[in-house]
Every structure is written in C-alpha cells, then in structure tokens.
C-alpha cells in the first residue's frame, strides 16, 4: 500500500503531506525532514527510489520525482510496483497540470483543498483507485462545479 504522499519544495518546505497511517504530528514533521534530507542530496540522474527502512519501517521505499521546484514523493511498501508508482506520480502531476493550467508550486500552496481532492480521487486509504488522468479530471471538475453551485 501507499503509506504517505508528500509534496515538498526543494528547500524542504512541505506543500502537501498526506499520511495513510496514523502518525503523531511530531512524527510527521520528523518524517518530512528526514525525507527531505534523503532526497536533497541525490543527483538528478540517480534512480528514483530510496529505501526508507529507517523512516517508515522495513521494506518501505520512497519513490520520488523532481519537477521544477517540487519533489513529489510516494512512500510505498512491497505491495506496490516502484516503476508503476513512478507513472502514477506522472498521472498526478498531469492531472494537476490540466486542472491548474500549467501548475506551479503556488497553485499547490493556495489550492490546498483542490489538490487534496485530486489526490483523494487517485489514492484512497493507501490504495490506488484511479489511474486515468482524464477520468480524474472529470470527477474533480464535477465536484468543483457542485461546490460552486
């Protein structure tokens, strides 16, 4: 399953932190910090996986992707496919991109709830529910429309 989804900028500021396991806020902060230290030292061409036994427990991995000023990080256990998750990050970002039209870090900061809505359509309770970007956009738009109405 997916243990957590984190989006943080290249300075280590969290922009989105969603944990699918109960953790105290203190622990969450510590994790964000550790994940950032783990990622910031990695060169661009290195592989997109980092073993995270120490942070999340045995068998967990960080699968991350670096876009402009942001890191998108999924924490997964052995039940998920690393390469698959890499594409899921792609789906997530593509979806955000089509919703915000050229997404940037600030869109994510200011549209906290929208980003969360998108993520909730993709991952629910630590499982991947939807992987098709157009489908996600469709249901998210529907929610937004209703919310406005």
């Amino acid at each position, binding site marked *: 399953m997916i243990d957590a989804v984190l989006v943080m900028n290249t300075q280590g500021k969290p922009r989105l932190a969603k944990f699918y396991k109960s953790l105290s*806020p203190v622990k969450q902060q510590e994790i964000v910090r550790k994940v950032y230290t783990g990622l910031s030292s990695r060169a661009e061409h*290195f*592989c997109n996986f*980092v073993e995270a036994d120490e942070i999340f427990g045995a068998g967990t991995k960080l699968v991350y992707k670096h876009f402009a000023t942001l890191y998108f990080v999924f924490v997964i256990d052995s039940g998920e496919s*690393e390469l698959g998750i*890499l594409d899921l990050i792609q789906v997530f970002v593509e979806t955000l991109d089509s919703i915000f039209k050229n997404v940037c870090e600030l869109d994510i900061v200011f549209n906290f709830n929208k980003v969360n809505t998108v993520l909730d359509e993709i991952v629910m309770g630590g499982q991947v529910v939807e992987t098709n970007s157009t489908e996600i956009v469709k249901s998210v738009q529907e929610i937004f429309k209703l919310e406005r109405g």
Partner: protein
Amino acid sequence: MSFTTMEQLKTIGRELAMGSQGVWGSSKEFLELVKTIGEAKSKAEEERIVLAEIESLKRRIQEPDVPRKKMKEYIMRLVYVEMLGHDASFGYIHAVKMTHDDNLLLKRSGYLAVTLFLNEDHDLIILIINTIQKDLKSDNYLVCCAALTAVCRLINEETIPAVLPQIVELLNHQKELVRKKAVMALHRFFQRSPSTVSHLFPAFQERLCDRDPSVMSAVLCALYDMILVNVKPFKHLVASLVSILKQAVEHRLPKSYDYHRTPAPFVQIKLLKILALLGTGDKAASENMFNVLGDILKRSDSTSNIGNAILYECVRTLTSIYTNPRLLQNAAEITAKFLKSDNHNLKYMGIDALGRLIKITPECAENHQLAVIDCLEDPDDTLKRKTLDLLYKMTKANNVEVIVERMVEYIRNISDNHYKTEISSRVIELAERYAPSNQWFIQTMNQVFEIAGDLVPQKVAHDLMRLIAEGAGEEDEDADSHLRSSAVQAYLQILKEPKLPSILLQVISWVLGEYGIADGSHSAEFIIGKLCDIVATRPGDDKLKGYVVSAITKICAFEKAAGQTVDLIPECVSFIEELYASHSTDLQQRIYEFHAVLKLDRDTIASILPMDASCEDIEVDKDLSFLNSFVESALANGSRPYLSDNERRGMGAMTTLASNNDAGTSSLLRFQPYEKPSIPEPAAALVTASHYSQDAIDQHDIYSSTITVSTSSRAPESSSNDGTRLKLEGVQKKWGRPTYTPEAQVPKNPINISDSVKVSSSAAGKEASSRNSSAPPYTERKQPSQEISAEKKKLAASLFGSKAGETKAKPAAKLQQNGTSKKAPAKPTSPPAPAPAPPPADLLDLSDSLPQIPSVDPVDQLADLISVDSSAATSTTSLVEQVLDAGKVATKGPSPQASLQKDSVSRQVGVTPSGGTNPDLFKDLFG
C-alpha cells in the same frame, strides 16, 4: 532553484499588494502569510510568523457569528499551519462542526480538515460518526464519496460496526465511483480488523465481476492484501484472475484504461502480484498462468517506463511461482536488458530481479558480473546498497573475503547509523558463516568494531572472545597460543589509536587479562599499565571498569600463582582506591574480591584463578556434599531433617532433586506462577541449623548461588563464614524468591565467553593476510593494477569465479566440523562447551613471524587442579562476571532457553548444528 521560488513569491506578493483578487480565490491575508513565510530568512523568523498567525486565528475563530465561508478559510489556514509543524488542535472542533454543514463545499472542506487533523482514535471522532452515517445515505453521490473517503481515515475497530451496514449497501450503488470507494473502505476495514469483514469475502469476489472495470481493479487491491494473509480461500480464483489478465493484455478493457498505449498497466501489475502469491509452490495453479505470462513477456513494450514496470513484475511472478525453464530463460533476458540499461531505475530493478533469479538459477549471476560491479561502484547510494544486498545473497565460501571487504569499505564511508548497524550485522553474519580462518575472522571483527563500534550487539563481542579463548581446539595448543598472542599484539597496537568504542575496549581488557602475560613477552606491570590507560580514556564507563578490574585481578593472580610478587604501579593503586568508594556496587564487589584474592596463599589462588581456564567447565557440587558434616552435626543436635518441597507442599509440578543428604538442589527456571507466600518458620529457627535443613526449595537457589559456587571456589575459607551467610539468606527470603536463580548453576565458561571480546588488529591482520597465500582473492586484489577494466575483471572473478570456490570450500567445511566437535564435549547440564576448532592452515604460516610461547599446557595444569578438588575450578572472575551480566546469564542454565541459545550460538560461530558439511547457501535467505 530556491532563488526562483523566492522571485515567484515576490511577484505574487506584489500582485496581491496591488489589490488584485488573487487567481486562487483565497483571501489576501492568507496569501500574505504564505508570502512572508516564503521570504523568511531563518527558521526562527518563520516560527515567529507562524506563531503570530496562530494567535490571530485563535482569537478570530472564537468570535461569535463567523461567516461560514470565512470559517472555511480559517480552517484551511489551520491546516497549512499544522503542515508546517505547529499545533492547531484548538481549531479541530470547528473543523468537526463544518462537516455537519449542508453546503457541499463546506462539508468537503470539513471532511478534508478532519482527515488531516485527526487520527482514528481521537476523542472528537465520536462527534463525526453520526454525520458520516447520514452522509453515507445521501442521495448526492458526491456526499457519499466524501463520507467514504473520511471513513477510510477516521473509523477504528470499535466504530466499524456503526458504518459497516451502510457501506455494504453502497457496494450496489448505481454509480461506479461509489461502488469503488465502498470497496476501498471495506478494504481499509480489513486492514484494521480482518474479522469485521471476513464474512464479506463473497461480496468482494462478486464485485470482481463488476460491469465497471474500475471497481474490479479496486477489488484487486483488497484481494492482494487478503491473499497475503491467507492464500487458501482464494485458490479457486486463479482461473478467473488469469482470464481477467488475459483480457487486459489483449486490449479488451475500455480504451480509457490505457496508459501510454499500454493496456491497463496498473491492473496488470496488481494481477501479477496476486498471481505470484497464488502460484507460490503450487504447480497446478502455476501451469494455468504460464500462457498469459508468456504473452505479457512477448507483448510488453520495453521502451516505456510502464512497460518495464509490467515486465519486471512478470519476472517477479515467474521467480515466485513453480518454475518454467523456458519462461525463466525469458526472464533472465529481460533482467539482462535492465542491467545493461543506462537508466538507473532500470538498473535498480535489474539488480533486484537478479537477486530473485539467482535463488532459482544461481549460475545466471555470472553473465552479469561486470554490470553488477558497475552498480556496486556507482555513486548512487540506493543502487550501491541494492547491489550489496545482492552480493549478500550471493555470498559463498569462495567469495566471502571480497564481499565482506566491500561491505566493510561501505560502512566505513557512511554516517547513517541505521545502515551501519544493518550492514555490519550482515558482515558479522557472513564472517561467522563462511570465515576461511579464525585469523581472518578476528581481523574482520576488529574492523567492524572499529567502524561500527557500539552499534554492534554485545553478543558479537562475546562470540569473538569465545573464539579467542577456544582457539582452534585442544588438539593444537600451539596454534591456539599463536592466535591468542597475535590477538594480544594486535590489541596492544590498536590501543594506540584514540577514541575506541567501549565495546572494543571491553574485549581488549578481557583478552589482555586472560592472555596478556600468557606468552611471557609482556610483563605484568606493562599489561596492568595498559589496562589503567584504557580506563583513563573513558572515565565514566563503569562497565568497562568492571572488565578492567577483572583483568587486573586475573593478572595479579597469575603472577602470584607463579610465585612472583606483584607491585602495583601508582596509577593502578589510585584507580583501585577510587573504586572502593564507587557508586557502582558491582565495581565495589569486584574490588573487594580483588583484595580478598590477593591475600590468599599461592596454591589457593592457583586453584581459584587458574591460568587459561576460561573454557573449562565449572564443576558445581550439586549435592552440596561439602556441607555434609555441617548437616550431620546439626541433625545430631536435634534438628529436623530436610523435607523436599514435594513432600512439604504436595506440589508435584516443581522439579526438585532431593538427595539423601538433604542438600539436594535444583535451579531450573520456574514457569509456574509463584504460590502464595508460605508462613515463615518461627523466628528462632532462622538462626539454627534446623532452619537450613527444613527450608523449602525457595532457598535452594540462594544456597546454590551463594554457597555452592562461592564456597567451593574459595574452598579453604572457613565454614563459619557460611553460617553467617545462611542467616542472611534466610532473612532475604522474606522478600520472596531470589530472581537470579539460574546463575548459580551456570558453569564458568559460558559466562566468560559470553562476556566479551573483540579484536581489531588491522595492522597485524593485514600483514597476516598478505602473507597468507591460501586466500587468492585477497592477494589478487592487492596487486596494483594499471588497467581499470582488468581490475574489475579480477574483482568479478573473485566474486563470481566458481573454480576458486571448490578449492576454498574446504576451510568452511572445517569450521563446520569444528562446530560439531564443539557440541560434543558439552556436559549435559552445562551450556555450550568451548568449541575447539581444528587449526586452519594459515595459522601455521604465522608461527614463523610470531614469538614462540613457552609451552605450558594450561589444560594439564588444570587437570591437576581438578583432581585435587573438583569444585575448585570455579574462578572468582566468573562470579564477578556473572554479576556483571546477570540479565544475560539468567537465560542460560539447563532450560529450553539454554538449548535454544546454544543452538543460536553454534550458528553464530558458523556452524549448523545439524552438522552438514556443506553450508547451504540460500537456506536461510530463501527458506
């Protein structure tokens, strides 16, 4: 990059300042907040800004009649603040209230906030349950969805029944989105508490045939977890799952499931994972799968990331299920492709896949030697670690030296304690399992201790001390002495280095105490001086002091026993003086014992602290026969004879060994609960001998711990002493049964052994290994080689070369036998006896370079002693060390634990107790 962010933020800020309504529709204040935080120069400044924000939110959120839209914004700001690591609990209740709102936007925001704020055990959850129940029944499917999402996060085991019926109903909702989420919610319940949804397995399976594939794929996630727990109830699904997979592969699912022209890749991956579980060890099920797996291998596109994801998953499945040679061949080809790729991600997957393949076909590793070595030398840490993982799985007797060297090199260069611990434990494991020689083993351990220091478990230190103590076996005392004196030399060398970890110093102290003066090349004064230096480097380390005091005691005793006088050097005297007033009772006891020992005469000392006797068994006089005369005189004076516990209380369960002379004793661990305290004998009886003879086994422990061992080890001391002790123990009984029972029965050697040793002789060690011609990989590597590729090839050869393996398999086998012989001499009641190993060949090479040792056979000496008084073999050191490690020792003794421990100890030393001569390479790894 950070600069650009800043710039961006500034631009935004300016726009806002000009009063434009932000494109994001949030209020100016919030944007301002984000902006100032973004511009904060330091953590402290950021802290200040956020705290001010919290204060203002606290004030405003409590104002009466906050407009609902405004409240929503406050709550979003709280979420933001909490994400930055500050406590926003004062606002939780408002988020909970917001979930009650009828407006969808507000309700969703409320749900979002509570799912981020609260965990399922929070007190406020109870206020939400009702709303959730209502929302699950809503006509608006989006409200249902919002509630379902919240359910995943907020419902705990206790509250599951409150919402379960509604959710089960939603499984048949007309909207596929709701059905899908209902499946997910139930899956979550399964993770929380499997029993609550176990009756729903059929419903899950029904949803597998849902007309909408997205619901089916949600069911797959749940199935995977359920199968992971128990495969059996799902075996019949193999055929259906295979047919679903077939449909997916053949593009028969709706186009919307395609991703980058790959048909439903996420469904395929999940299915492959499930099939891997179902096919494990099941030939019939696996045969069902071969066709479709072959199809996937043929069709998948290896140019896209997602295509490779499927291919990798396929390899993984093929290596888990029943073997099909043809498909495995394909899997090997894919792995090769991954390894040859320039993409680091694929290399990583390749290394992982190779690790799985070699379980089945070990020889396939050889084709990828160079690729593996490239990965090993890659600067990417993830890749390197993964490769070390692979090497660990590949280790055999023929390449252990190279691989361990690599690992040691790796931990030398990292600072991360977690991985240092993990990898050093692997090094230790490999070294113990495949060590070509004891010399090499000691060197390796020294390196590990130097690098990883106190991260290494104490047990490893004990094993190392044990190895040095036991040496190569009784058959070849010379080799043992060489091993020991080279260890002493190495340690004296290591002591010159600053900042040694405590655990290494403990080992050094023990070795110096036991063998420092054994070969006669160092004087007692010199060694004692060194020991005092050790203490000086770590003034606050009581445990280390304990080791040093014991070491000094032993050296003084050895000297005295040899008829020499010992003049303590001033440092030592002041060190000892200090300890008389130590806060540690353990240290005080040691130092008093030290003094008591020094006052004894030569023969007594020689019998209580014999030279090189750490491996000898302690004879425990279980019948307490030395007390016979005492008991007889007591009986003659009219005392009542001893009754065993069984006789007195009729408790059959307890094991008691009542012997004729009333002094029988047993100290097995008790597993029954303690019985009610019995009423003590009349007080007067305490002082008399009758007390002794009548007392219950509760007291045997005390007798055996304090009297058997201590008096027998100090045999010549007066028995009046015992009398006083007895009284004391009688008094102690009032507080219940002593907890240190088993100690008394533990013979001396396991304690000494378990007490600690390590070596860290890189200097001496390297010398030895370079001279050691029987270790080809080493020498090969040492040769300076100009050509890098040639060097790599050599490395490859030493890692993968199979010929070397056969010649080198012998030492391993030797160790193996050595283990079996270790077990043999153990007495039935005593824990693991020393394991004398046949001398490894390379030790003999060393003999030229090392000082010869005066040939005194400690075993002979000991034999004499034992014949005089069998109980005299106990040494005070062992007693002292017992105290030191009471916790550890308590698990020993004749008990199931002891035998388990024995078993694990023998494994640790590189021996499979079953005694097979050929180490089964993957037995532990792959079960």
